[in-house]
């Protein structure tokens, strides 16, 4: 099967598997939250630069706030 013939589910499975996000190990949650926060920040930077997609920008900012709260809480454990 070529990558072009792969179903969306196959592709998503491969992506998440490579990123270690299908079954996150016990002690990896704080690190994964930090990685997710960075990914959202990168996207938010792009959106701010484009300055023409306020809805997606607001959505990313909301997610970023959530991830920051989770990051702080999990690091205290």
């Amino acid at each position, binding site marked *: 099967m070529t990558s072009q013939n792969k*179903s*969306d*589910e*196959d592709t*998503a*499975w491969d*992506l*998440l598997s490579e*990123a270690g*996000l*299908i*079954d*996150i190990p*016990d*002690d990896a*949650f704080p690190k*994964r*939250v930090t*990685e*997710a926060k960075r*990914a*959202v920040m*990168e*996207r938010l930077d792009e*959106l701010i630069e*484009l300055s*023409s*997609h306020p*809805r*997606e920008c607001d*959505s*990313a900012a*909301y*997610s970023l706030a*959530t*991830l920051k*709260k*989770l990051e702080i*809480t*999990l690091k205290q*454990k």
Partner: protein
Amino acid sequence: MTAAAKHSDLSANWPSSESQVITFSSKEGPLTGVVKEIRWGLVWRDFILEDGRVIPEHRIVGHPNPPVWRKPEEISQSEREECERRLVSMADAGLDPRNDEQPFRAELNQYLAYTYLRYKQAKPKPDTSENADVA
């Protein structure tokens, strides 16, 4: 119906209906449980057992391969924000994601998977349509 008979019906009638016995992989090896409810998360289905454990579909013996997943664009803003509020609430309540098969771990795992697919890998161009990201 016996537990064994219910289990044999599972693959033919996927996803399992309520009150069926499932076998799933765990750190301790294969375990079984009785399904109370099946619930869609942001990416995959979770099977909630009668004892409260939450098992992702892909850990259940006999699940479809590849499992049927939702795409990030199928998730509305309100659904995502509800999930985010629940996660913050559970974290504030002192729940620990290291506890196996518990709701906080299950929901946080899915949220991180969803966030990766949405932001990191796909890197979609901003959707300019009127309906984009609307509940």
